């Protein structure tokens, strides 16, 4: 375990000194700041049943599409290109430990950057105390729980994409494409009428089960369901296991 924690600290340090981490954080906070401003102004100008936080969290997937690739694309691709992954594997470190430590580091920054968005409602309430009733704490808690559990799968997808190539840019593009398919694709498949008509209703059911936006709807409605937990964590575990196998075989 000591070796794993050492690797985690090393990976977090590597990410902390990497410019792409700061670019991701900057772009993400700029975008989410604008979304938050828009949701606040919409609520103040028009009558809406949606809370500003619900509107804000609904746009989570747009920055995820660029933030996750920026955070994860270097993780394995860059190390393999430089040969430092091979040097790491000459010690008693296992590929599973390496992959897990990369995941932990990327996930740590993913969570950290999202937590920074808590300052948006805090700053709003600080300057406009009358806005406090607009923010339901329980809704915010469940919303962030959704962000964090779904984030585990998105980061695992990014790490997986990074293990497939030596080129950082290709890893980034692969990660973006996979995330797009996962976030948007399941929703599109679930709406294909031809599938239900041709007796493939199980495909529609599966796609519906994987629909990110349905999960988001449930969580942002202050509801905690265990099924999405199982889905996101099991998918993350499978992806990380495959990544560890790829890392091991590509290193040989």
């Amino acid at each position, binding site marked *: 375990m*000591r*070796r794993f924690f050492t690797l985690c600290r090393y990976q977090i340090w590597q990410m902390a*000194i*990497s410019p792409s981490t700061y670019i991701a954080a900057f772009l993400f906070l700029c975008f989410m700041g604008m979304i938050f401003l828009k949701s606040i102004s919409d609520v103040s100008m028009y009558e809406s049943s949606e809370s500003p936080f619900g509107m804000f969290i609904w746009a989570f997937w747009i920055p995820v599409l660029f933030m996750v690739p920026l955070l994860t694309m270097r993780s394995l691709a860059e190390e393999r290109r430089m040969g*430092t992954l091979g040097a790491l594997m*000459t010690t*008693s470190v296992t590929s599973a430990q390496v992959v897990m430590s990369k995941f932990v580091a990327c996930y740590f920054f993913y969570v950290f950057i999202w937590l920074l968005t808590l300052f948006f409602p805090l700053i709003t309430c600080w300057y406009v105390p009358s806005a406090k009733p607009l923010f339901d704490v329980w809704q915010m808690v469940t919303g962030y729980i959704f962000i964090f559990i779904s984030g585990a799968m998105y980061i695992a997808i990014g790490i997986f994409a990074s293990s497939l190539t030596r080129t950082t840019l290709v890893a980034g593009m692969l990660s973006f494409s996979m995330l797009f398919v996962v976030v948007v694709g399941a929703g599109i498949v679930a709406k294909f009428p031809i599938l239900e008509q041709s007796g493939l209703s199980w495909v529609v059911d599966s796609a519906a089960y994987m629909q990110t936006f349905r999960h988001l709807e449930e969580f942002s409605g202050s509801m905690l369901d265990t099924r999405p937990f199982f889905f996101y964590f099991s998918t993350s575990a499978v992806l990380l296991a495959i990544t560890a196998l790829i890392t091991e075989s590509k290193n040989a």
Partner: protein
Amino acid sequence: MDEISEIPNSVIVRRLTKTYGAMKALNGVSFRIAKGEVVGFLGPNGAGKSTTMRILAGLMPATSGSAHICGVSVANHPDLARRHIGYMPENNPLPEDLRVVEYLRFRAKIKDIPASELKARVDEVMETCQLHRKAAKKIIGNLSKGFRQRVGIADAILAKPEVIIMDEPTIGLDPHQILAIRELVRSLRGKMSVIISSHILPEIEQMCDRVMIINQGSIVASGSYAALRKEFIAWDKYDVSLKLAPEEFEKIVSGINKEAIVKKVLRDKGGYYNYVLRAPEGANLGPVLIGELSKDTAYGLREVSCEKPGLEDIFMAATKRSWEQIRETEGGAQHSDSDREVVE
């Protein structure tokens, strides 16, 4: 555990093969390295040196055969075997954005050096590799090639492994740095088994107790420098410079020693000829040649020198012999050893 009884050998490799599709990168390689021995691993590009080293380091599985490091099977217990190895890969990959001391501390931690000994051990290797002054705090990406090589060597010896494998450790170093690394390897003799691959043959000659030459995936020669010299080169080389035509010179040489042959003639300015002569080892032709060729001042003798064949000659002879064996098995033409080269 897959233990074997021959404890004095740190490395035992038996009939190791590695194939990539139809291509055989290693073809039944077998060797042993004793504890504390420094062994040079030589071979032309693509001969299988790096493949062998990567298999020993547990980075790559062999297709068949076995490799044991300190009695531990690399294939069956790669994690355990790696604990006994310090490996410096060919291009010495290092993280560009860490400081030397940070990197070595990180490597010490993942190599399971106890926390209480960590600082002292890192300081010790930095001092051994002369990294303890300004270089310790420098970002690795800003280091010169020589200092990067030192960081790689410091990492390899950090956990005091029983076996150190260094792939081209002196590549790109200046003479001062090469001397320092030579001294470092000397200091490891008797304590750790060291395998060094290099293309710089004089380096291997000076640093190693034993030399292994690999060609076409097979070990074609193995032994001490003296033993290899005896096996592959049973002759001495003489350089003679004088104003005597090749025919007459050959006549005189055959009169002195019938087995001596002129290998190379180079026509020089002022009517001089520079000859390269081969004679059986220990024939001691020098004094006789000087005596015979000084009798007539018209010969204009200006140089007679004897040159003992070096590792370069052994390397060439061993690889040439293996090529000839391959050609013979393939039914190709044989190359004559007695061809004389004439350069105008």
